[in-house]
């Protein structure tokens, strides 16, 4: 066991010790997260609301055997200021606070009754991380030095709005089963919106990044200015079913929703679009394109999209369980070679539905859609006789859970492609489409590249997608927005 006195790691140990004392027969998981974040925001080509924050929380999960049978789960989360971490001789007051939180979690677990997702906490797969006692990672506004300089140059000529954030999240996880893990997850993104007041055109682009060293803002701005030029000719098109090329960002927003909807229990119980009469859609062939939609901690081919393969959570649901804290995650293939591959299950649900082939499969932190050709987006435009090229999607919401029908809008650039070239900008549309149906109807998938989702970026940034060609994308109505 690691012995430390003053650090977030020590906080983990102290809480586990309190939990053992308060309720020796209970399992416990303690999760400390510290996030250092810097943000830049601008609009109308001037800086607006910017700042830096440091936040630290501790999550306490108590898994309490119940006298009537079964195990209940209770969770308490609280801010973890220095006062709780403090020096070793200043622990009495802090320990009282922590003990109160532990007792609150015990009461919550006892009152909750037997949990359906109950399972023994996972045993450690190795010794404690050697850096378990290390301090948190940090960032500062300095990470944006290069970006700010490029923006300053841009503000003189571009009508620009955008946002850049960089965060470094350090997680410490300890459980009564012996897991002691610490990992640092740096992340962030920049996105830029340019407008041409003369034409009314609007364009958007963005990049995710771990450290901003790989962000080429002048290059991104150059691409966006080229797209603005496409708006010099504008054509009004009616709603209807149009051949449409979805670029990787738009594809990612559909695929993220699909991945979020892969819950095994809802599908098994008949209340999901992944249900079918008498069972689930696992194994059903959606497309003859050999598409695989996977979450993979190793992100083969995309080193910037890797994540730590450890489950750490303070909430339970259809796809994830607090009883699984410390479990090692794995590559999950939601779609495999054009078929529905597998569904998301906590360990207990995987055991419950094992006869149906269920395996422990928590939601992934990245999403990779592969299996397309080597064709780039430009290649797919070049091979299009007449169709639409989208930029990104916005305000997507589920209309019908039975079919996973989503509505939403095109945003910041819809272009008419004629005889292999972009010839004009067209109006925006409202669409009604299901990600499942898009996979079913796609006639071409290009080369997979790293992309930034637009709609779901606040929750999900690690994605690599190909462009998709949809022969009959359902543009339900015209939007006047530009």
């Amino acid at each position, binding site marked *: 066991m690691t012995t430390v006195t003053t650090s977030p790691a020590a906080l983990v140990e102290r809480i586990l010790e309190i939990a053992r004392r308060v309720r020796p027969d209970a399992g416990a998981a303690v999760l400390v997260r510290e996030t250092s974040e810097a943000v830049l925001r601008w609009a109308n080509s001037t800086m607006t609301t*910017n*700042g830096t924050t440091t*936040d630290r929380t501790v999550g306490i999960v108590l898994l309490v055997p119940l006298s009537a049978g079964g195990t209940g789960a209770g969770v*308490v989360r609280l*801010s973890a200021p220095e006062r709780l971490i403090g020096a070793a001789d200043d622990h009495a007051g802090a320990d009282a606070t922590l003990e109160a939180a532990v007792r609150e979690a015990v009461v919550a677990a006892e009152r909750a009754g037997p949990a359906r997702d109950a399972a023994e906490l996972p045993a450690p797969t190795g010794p404690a991380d050697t850096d378990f006692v290390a301090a948190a990672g940090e960032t500062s506004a300095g990470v944006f030095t290069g970006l700010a300089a490029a923006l300053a140059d841009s503000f003189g000529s571009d009508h620009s709005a955008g946002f850049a954030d960089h965060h470094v999240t350090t997680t410490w996880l300890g459980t009564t089963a012996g897991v002691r893990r610490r990992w640092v997850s740096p992340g962030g993104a920049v996105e830029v919106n340019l407008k041409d007041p003369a034409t009314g055109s609007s364009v958007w682009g963005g990049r995710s990044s771990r450290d901003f060293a790989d962000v080429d803002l002048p290059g991104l701005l150059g691409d966006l200015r080229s797209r603005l030029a496409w708006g010099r000719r504008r054509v009004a098109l009616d709603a209807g079913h149009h051949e449409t090329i979805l670029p990787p960002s738009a594809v990612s927003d559909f695929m993220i929703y699909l991945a979020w909807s892969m819950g095994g229990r809802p599908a098994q119980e008949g209340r999901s679009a992944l249900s079918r*009469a008498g069972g689930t859609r696992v194994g059903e062939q959606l497309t003859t394109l050999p598409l695989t939609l996977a979450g993979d901690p190793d992100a083969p081919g995309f080193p910037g999209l890797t994540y730590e393969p450890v489950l750490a959570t*303070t909430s339970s649901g259809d796809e994830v369980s607090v009883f699984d804290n410390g479990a090692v995650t794995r590559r999950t293939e939601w779609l495999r070679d054009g078929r529905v591959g597998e569904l998301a299950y906590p360990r207990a649900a995987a055991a419950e539905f094992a006869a149906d082939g269920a395996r422990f499969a928590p939601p992934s932190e990245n999403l990779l859609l592969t299996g397309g050709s080597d064709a780039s987006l430009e290649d797919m435009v070049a091979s299009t006789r007449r169709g639409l090229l989208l930029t990104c999607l916005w305000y997507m919401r589920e209309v019908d859970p039975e079919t996973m029908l989503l509505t939403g809008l095109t*945003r910041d650039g819809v272009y008419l492609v004629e005889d292999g070239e972009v010839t004009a900008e067209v109006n925006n549309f409202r669409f009604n489409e299901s990600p499942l149906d898009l996979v079913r109807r796609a006639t071409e998938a290009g080369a997979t590249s790293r992309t930034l989702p637009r709609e779901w970026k606040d929750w999900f940034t690690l994605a690599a997608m190909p462009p998709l060609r949809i022969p009959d994308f359902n543009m339900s109505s015209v*939007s006047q927005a530009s």
Partner: protein
Amino acid sequence: MSIESAPAGRPDAVHEVDADFLALPLREVAAAALEAARAGGAEHADVRVHRIRSAVLELRDARVVTSSDTDEVGLAVRVLREGVWGFAAHVDLTPGTAAATARRALDVAATLAPVARETITLAAEPVHADATWVSPYDLDPFAVDPGERIALLTDRSAALLAAPGVDHVEAVCLQVKEQTFYADLAGTVTTQQRVRVDPGISITAVDRDGGGFESLRSIAPPVGRGWEYLTGTGWDWDAELAELPVLLAEKLAAPSVTAGPTDLVIDPTNLWLVIHESIGHATEYDRAIGYEAAYAGTSFATPDQLGTLRYGSDVLRVTGDRTVPHGLASVAYDDDGVSTAETGPFDLIRDGVLVGYQVDRSFAPRLGLERSNGCAYADSAGHVPLQRMANVSLSPDPHADTSTAELISRVEDGIYVVGDRSWSIDMQRYNFQFTGQRFYRISGGELAGQVRDVAYQATTTDFWGAMEAVGGPSTWRLGGAFTCGKAQPGQVAPVSHGCPSALFRGIDVLNTASEAGR
């Protein structure tokens, strides 16, 4: 089915701000931060100690899935130095950290000054020294034993699960207590506490042989009340839940809708969300002048049209108000230190014409206003205050107390829409699409059973222009949302919208099954 009102609430108990929040070193932290900001040359600085206590209780099929409590607190310092904002936040509530956080905020302002192409001026506001406010509620939801909370939801879930045709039940209750201590260089000091709850219960019927399913959710809105809301004050849960399985059975047997232009009578339980999306957000001044362009979007209702834009029919009157009782956006002082009682309700649309915007202290002068109308809010210590939405509400008919049934009686062939479900609107607030929980065919001025697979689409000004009549005061209800999103980094805000039932002519109705290609 009932289209009448929920019972009125009983008088609220008077509460004080919790002692454990007042025991935090609020004034010491504020003094240290403000002194550091003053020494660093800030012309304005404010300090917020912001505590959010929240609880999530979720049951599926009468068993607890999640039971968690969260208690987060931190300090935020915002400075205005030479007309440029700087912001910093920290989890540690000590004078030393507060001063250091203020210096970090000053550093941000100084670093960005060369890149800032405009300077900020704040509207002058009166100083409010040591003001305290607590929202009206009877029973602090955090004072209720978790066992009692779970038992209530378990009992209700079990009763629904036992009803014919119900295969699954999901019950959720979110509850929040928000405490804010605010102090600024001008001398305003406010301490506030408010609570809110968001309970909901949905039932699902599964056709195992056919492979389909259908669900229905309660239409009780989230409100600024305490636990008493779950036991009958402000909503008749027993009546609604008793009715739910019958309504689901009717929905399952209902015919699919015929798409096309349709007269709609929209219940307040659905219309509030249309107001939120197509008026509430569209009349945010920061959006209208481009400050959300890269994210939430802008607005078709631009300031050059103030006083002239025909937003809707003559019966359209919309106000903003942060004082409405039990409103989710109701506070006594906003996060700029502005008194909402002094700003009072303010007109956004009058006689169908755009006449106002929602602003905070930084945007009021740009619109030529001398005062803010109290719309600043930050959702946590980690985030900077923004212009956020007031309780934006549609006024009822001031001349006649027209009932929902009377509105329905004016429709020969149409649909009555109840409860919200799916929603989406474009980034300039033109084109929207909504669904609902229940849709009733209106035939010959009377309800004629449910129809299903309904969505309606419109452009904002066309929709409000097609509003022929609004119901009277007796049809007026407060709806709302717990987590309205805006800004980057993303912030959520609770907000309510009051409205009467209303009659619309010729709105485009879609068949969602056809839209899905079935």
